[in-house]
C-alpha cells in the first residue's frame, strides 16, 4: 500500500536539521525527495561523528528515504538542473539565510515562474526580514530566545541548563512538514501553489508557548495566580534511584497515597482535594511524599503505583530503551542494514495509518551524491552530458 504522500515530488535544497527532518517525514509518507548537496563534504550533518561506511548516524536519522544529487550551484548549468527538477516537482524546500536563494536564482519568484503550482517552503532562523534576519543560527541559540532555556532550571538546584535535545530545530521541522501537507491539500482544493515561510524563532516559541508561557498568557491589571508546569516538574528519589510520577486529579492523588502506604492522607483535608493542596499544605505534602518515596526501592514503588492507576514510570537510560516491553511491543524501533554503513536502528515514524502506511524502509539514507547520475538521467541527460558535467566539476567525478 502506498503512503499518503505517494506520488508527491520534493526538491530539497536544505541542510543540517530543520529542513532535512521535515522532508524525511514527507519521504516516510511516500514522497520522492531529491536532496541537493554541495561538493566536498556535503550536508554539515555528514560530519564524521558516529560514522561508518560514508554515513553518519545524525545524517542517517534525518535523511532516510531520500535520493542525493551533488551539484555545483555556482555554475549556471547547476542552477538550470535545479530548475528542471522543479518544473516537475510539487514542493521545494530550502533553509539558506534570507536572500541567498534569490542570489542563486532559486528564490520563490524565480521558481514560481517555472512552476506556478509549486509549494515553496523557506525555513529561516529568525524570519525573512527584521533585525536578526541575517544572523547565523543553531538550535541552542533559538532555545535561548524562545523560553526553553529560560525555564530549564531545577528549583531545588537552581543551575540553568539547555534542553539537551535540539527541540527548536525539530519543532520547526514538524511545523514545516504539517504546513507543507496543508498547502498540498489546499492546492488540491483549488488554492494554487504558494510560499510558506517558517521562521525557527517563531516555531520554537509556538511550540514552547502552551505550557511554557501559561504564567504569561493572561495579562492586564489582575493576572490570575498559579504555578507553571515547569515549576512543578520533578524527579523523585527512591531508595535506589529515581522515578517519575505525575498526579493531576484527586483520584490520582488518592491512588498515590495508597501506593506509598499512607491511605490516611485521603481523609486529611489538607491533602484530599485540589483546593486543599495549595500553599503550606502543599509544602507539607511534598516533604511527606519525598520521605515516603525515599523509603522504598524504585521497582516496588512503580508496581504499587501502577496497581493504583497512578501515572508513573522509571527513568530509562538510552541503552534500556531497547529492552522496554512497550517500546518492543509497539515495534517502535526498527533494525536496518545499510550496504556500506552496516547495521543500524531508527525510531519508526510515530503515526500509524491503516490504509496508507508509512514506509521508512523504502530507501536507505543516501551516500553523498549516490543518485546524481540516476536523477540526471531521469531528467533526460545523456552519458555524454554527464561526462561533460564531470569534467566541468559540476557533478562529482
Amino acid at each position, binding site marked *: 500500500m502506498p503512503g499518503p504522500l505517494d506520488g508527491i515530488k520534493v526538491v530539497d535544497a536544505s541542510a543540517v536539521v530543520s529542513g532535512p527532518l521535515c522532508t524525511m517525514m514527507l519521504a516516510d509518507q511516500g514522497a520522492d525527495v531529491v536532496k541537493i548537496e554541495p561538493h566536498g563534504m556535503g550536508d554539515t550533518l555528514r560530519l564524521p561523528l558516529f560514522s561508518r561506511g560514508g554515513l553518519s548516524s545524525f545524517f542517517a536519522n534525518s535523511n532516510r528515504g531520500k535520493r542525493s544529487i551533488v551539484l555545483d550551484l555556482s555554475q549556471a548549468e547547476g542552477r538550470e538542473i535545479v530548475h528542471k527538477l522543479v518544473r516537475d516537482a510539487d514542493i521545494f524546500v530550502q533553509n539558506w539565510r534570507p536572500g541567498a536563494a534569490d542570489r542563486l536564482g532559486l528564490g520563490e519568484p524565480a521558481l514560481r515562474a517555472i512552476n506556478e503550482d509549486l509549494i515553496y517552503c523557506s525555513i529561516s532562523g529568525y524570519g525573512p526580514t527584521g533585525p536578526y534576519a541575517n544572523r547565523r543560527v543553531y538550535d541552542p541559540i533559538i532555545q535561548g530566545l524562545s523560553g526553553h532555556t529560560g525555564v530549564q532550571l531545577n528549583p531545588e538546584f537552581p543551575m540553568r541548563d539547555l534542553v539537551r535535545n535540539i527541540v527548536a530545530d525539530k519543532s520547526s521541522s514538524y511545523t514545516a512538514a504539517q504546513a507543507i501537507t496543508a498547502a498540498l491539500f489546499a492546492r488540491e482544493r483549488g488554492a494554487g501553489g504558494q510560499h510558506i515561510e517558517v521562521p525557527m524563532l517563531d516555531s520554537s516559541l509556538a511550540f514552547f508557548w502552551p505550557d511554557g508561557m501559561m504564567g*504569561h498568557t493572561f495579562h492586564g491589571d489582575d493576572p490570575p495566580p498559579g504555578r507553571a508546569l515547569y515549576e512543578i516538574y520533578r524527579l523523585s528519589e527512591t531508595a535506589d534511584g529515581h522515578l517519575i510520577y505525575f498526579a493531576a486529579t484527586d483520584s490520582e492523588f488518592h491512588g498515590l497515597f495508597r501506593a506509598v502506604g499512607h491511605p490516611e492522607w485521603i481523609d486529611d483535608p489538607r491533602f484530599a482535594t485540589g483546593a486543599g493542596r495549595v500553599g503550606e499544605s502543599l509544602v507539607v505534602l511534598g516533604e511527606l511524599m519525598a520521605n515516603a518515596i525515599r523509603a522504598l526501592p524504585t521497582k516496588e514503588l512503580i508496581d504499587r503505583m501502577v496497581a493504583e492507576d497512578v501515572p508513573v514510570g522509571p527513568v530509562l537510560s*538510552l541503552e534500556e530503551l531497547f529492552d522496554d516491553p512497550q517500546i518492543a511491543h509497539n515495534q*517502535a524501533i526498527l533494525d536496518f542494514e545499510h550496504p556500506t554503513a552496516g547495521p543500524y536502528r531508527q525510531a519508526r515514524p510515530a503515526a500509524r495509518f491503516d490504509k496508507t502506511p508509512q514506509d521508512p524502509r523504502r530507501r536507505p539514507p543516501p551516500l553523498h551524491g549516490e543518485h546524481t547520475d540516476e536523477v540526471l538521467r531521469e531528467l533526460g541527460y545523456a552519458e555524454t552530458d554527464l561526462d561533460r558535467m564531470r569534467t566541468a566539476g559540476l557533478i562529482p567525478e
Partner: protein
Amino acid sequence: MRAMSGPLSGIRVVDFSAVVSGPLATMILADQGADVIKVEAPERADLLRREWYSRGGLTSLFANVNRGKRSIVLDLRTDSGLEAAHALCRRADVVVENFRPGVAERLEIGPDDLHAINPKLVYCRVSGYGQTGPWSGRRAYDPVAQALTGYVAIQKNPEVPIPDLVRNIVVDKAASYTAAQAITAALLARELGRGGEAGKGQTISVSLLDAGLAFFWPDGMMKHTFLGDGIREGPALYDRYRLTETQDGHIVMWAGGDNEWHAVFEALDRPELCQDERFATGRARADHGEELGLILYNEFRKWTTDEIVKRMEAAEAPCAPVLGLDEIPDNPQLQHNETIYEVEHQSAGRMLQCRPAPRFSRSRAETGAIAPLVGEHTDEVLAEIGFSPEQIAAMREQGATR
C-alpha cells in the same frame, strides 16, 4: 482562485480529546481554518479547565491549546447525547480522541462505529503507550513518557550531573504535531485517492511513547544508531550542550565551522587565536579541547552579557542571551515578526497568544480566535445539525447536555 482562507478551511473536525496531546493537534487544524467542535462531558470538562492561571472561566493552558474551537457539552452515555455526537460525526471529515484504549469503543464512538456511519472519516486516536501492549492500559502524562524515551536520561549537565526533566511538555507536543501532520496527510490522501477508493477515510494511531521517541531520536540517539564495530566515535550533541557564563549571567553560543570560530575569537578581542594552529581546524580544536575550553571560560567571564552579545553579533558569531519569560515579548525580532499578539476575551480579559509559525502566502492562518468557554456553542452547534430548541431543552432536562 479562492479568496484567502486557511488551507484547511471547509474541513470539519469533531474533537473528543482532552488535556494536551489531542487538543493541541486540533488547534493546529483550527488555526488553519478547520471548524473544530470540541465535545466535553457535563460532569467532567477538560482537565485543563481546572487549576491555575484561571480568569473568567478560562485557564491559560486551556486557552493555549484550544484556540479557535467551538465547545459543545454532551453526555455520551445518554441516548440523545450519543445521537448528537453521531450526527456531528456523520458530516465531519476528522475525528480525534485520546481516551484510554477501549473507552471510545465502549462509548460507541470507536473507529468501526463511526466509519459505519461515515466512511470518509479520518479517525485519529492518540494514546499514551499504544492501543495494545503491556503498558496500554496505564495512565500517561508527559513527564512519565519523557522518562521512557530518553529525554530525562540525558537531561544532565556533565559538569554538574544532577538529573532533570525537560521542563516543557515536549512529548505531549511532539505527539500533537505528529498527529496534526498525519491527519493532514490523510486528508490529502483521501483527496488523491491513495490507499483505496478516493473519498475513503482511514484510522491513524499515534502514541506519546512512539511520538516522543521518534522526536528524540535524530540527535538524542546518535550514539545508539549504528550497531556493531568499526564506528568512528564522536561526542553526541547533548554532551556538548552548555551555557556560557559571562560576568553577570549567561549566554548561549555555538560555533560550527572555522569562520564561526574566528568570529568568536574576534568578539572576545583575541584575534591572534585565529592564527593559532591549535585551533585552526575542527580536528585541531578537538585535539586541544581543554585548552580552548579554558580560554573561552576565562575570556567570556571578562564581559557582561550585554557587551559580549553585541560583540558576537557584530562579528557574526552565533549567539543569544538567555531570555527570561518576561523578556520574550520585548525581543525586537519577535516584535518585527509580530509573533505575539494580544486578544481580549469577553470574560477572561486580555491575553497574549503566539501566532502559528507557518506564514502561508495564499492561505490565511487565524489570529484573533480565542478558546471557548465550556459549552459556549452547545445550542449553536446542535441547531446546525438539525436539533430544534425543544429537543435541546429536552436534552438539558435529561442531563444529556447543560
